[in-house]
């Protein structure tokens, strides 16, 4: 595998995760529990979609086959997507959305912090920009972890159910393979073991403060690196890509 191929894969992983979670959050548009939360989630979704546009745009440039970020977003099938499984999980209720977002926000916070020092200038620049936005996301979801976890009996139960369901998707975030090994050597990507330590140190106290339990099972879902996704991604892409695919080549 060449460095260029590794970079392309790595950028797909970053960009696809942003795109898919951005899409999931946009599904709340007009349906949020209160107006301010509706707006908050849409703002966060917008940050992610903007980030995805930039990263997938760079991925297309690195690939060098004439594809654009739109081709990558709207014309690939499930098996070609590299987003983390956690990002495609359905929104469920607000507890599930917040829990999923919190676990992912802590991850992106430390990951992008590390990417600011990437030897690839474009990645470093994008990370510098996104990390500032991610800091605001994390603050928001942390507050809601406390409010809902340490809230009413019902909100607490919903949060614990969400945590029980989603915890199994957190292992994959830190898995590394040939792509990571190559890029770590070049100083382009960070060692995810270091990120994992920071993630655990950050996540555990918040979960405890929210009066929630970390599930006791050890099993962790994986597969997104090989394009093996949960059943949800197909439906998500069908909806997300339908307009683009209905009018091939259309221009605004």
């Amino acid at each position, binding site marked *: 595998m060449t460095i260029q191929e590794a970079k392309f894969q790595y950028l797909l992983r970053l960009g696809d995760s942003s795109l898919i979670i951005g899409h999931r959050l946009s599904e709340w548009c007009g349906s949020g529990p209160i107006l*301010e*939360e509706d*707006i*908050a989630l*849409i*703002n*966060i979704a*917008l*940050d*992610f*979609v*903007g*980030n995805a*546009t*930039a990263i997938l745009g760079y991925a297309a440039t690195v690939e060098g086959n004439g594809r654009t970020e739109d081709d990558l977003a709207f014309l690939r099938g499930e098996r070609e997507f590299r987003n983390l499984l956690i990002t495609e999980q359905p929104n469920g209720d607000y507890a599930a959305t917040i829990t999923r977002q919190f676990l992912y926000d802590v991850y992106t916070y430390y990951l992008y912090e590390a990417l600011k020092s990437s030897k690839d*200038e*474009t990645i*470093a*620049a*994008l990370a*510098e*920009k*996104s990390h*500032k*936005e991610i*800091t*605001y996301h994390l*603050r*928001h979801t942390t507050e809601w972890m406390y409010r809902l976890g340490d809230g009413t009996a019902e909100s607490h139960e919903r949060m614990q159910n969400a945590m029980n369901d989603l915890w199994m998707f957190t292992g994959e975030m830190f898995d590394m393979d040939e792509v990571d090994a190559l890029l770590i050597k070049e100083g382009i990507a960070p060692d995810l073991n270091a990120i994992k330590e920071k993630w655990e140190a950050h996540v555990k106290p918040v979960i405890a403060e929210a009066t929630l339990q970390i599930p006791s099972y050890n099993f962790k879902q994986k597969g997104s690196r090989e394009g093996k996704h949960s059943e949800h991604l197909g439906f998500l892409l069908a909806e997300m890509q339908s307009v683009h695919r209905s009018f091939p080549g259309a221009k605004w």
Partner: protein
Amino acid sequence: MPQHDKLSNVFVILNEVKNLMIPNITTDQLFQFLSAIPDPEIPVINIIELGILREVKWDGETCTVVITPTYSGCPAMKVIEDDIRIKLKEIGIENVKVDLVYTPAWTTDWISDEAKEKLWAYGIAPPEHSSVDKGLLTGKVRHLKCPQCGSENVSMISQFGSTACKALYRCNDCREPFDYFKCI
């Protein structure tokens, strides 16, 4: 002389005239010329005052305009790009390329003091000095004044307001809501 020669001569002459009509204008002047473009959402400030317009340069016959987005997903960037093309077309420059650059990362530190006054007059609380607000990201409280009545007795409704760059506040004295331009 055959008909097509006459026609092609006409086209050559017209092209020369068109080139003469493009004013002999420096890139500095072009840069200032684009100050006429306001932020689409906040029309009292322009793209130079916001630090969005970074550079204007000539790449051969192409006028390249370099801009940087405020937030990654800012939808106003497309409108600003279109406005740049429209504005340059007014003075006969049609061969335009708009480059979106992400580095150096845009920061509210680039908003001029004058622009902050304009925001305030428009009803938007301007970003506080960055060192103060970055403290917010670790939990410290901002000290803002209501743009309508000047009271410091304000509450934050949501960290996310009408646009990606703004937070929503309410004044506890006059009860009016207002936007705060977040530091980033």
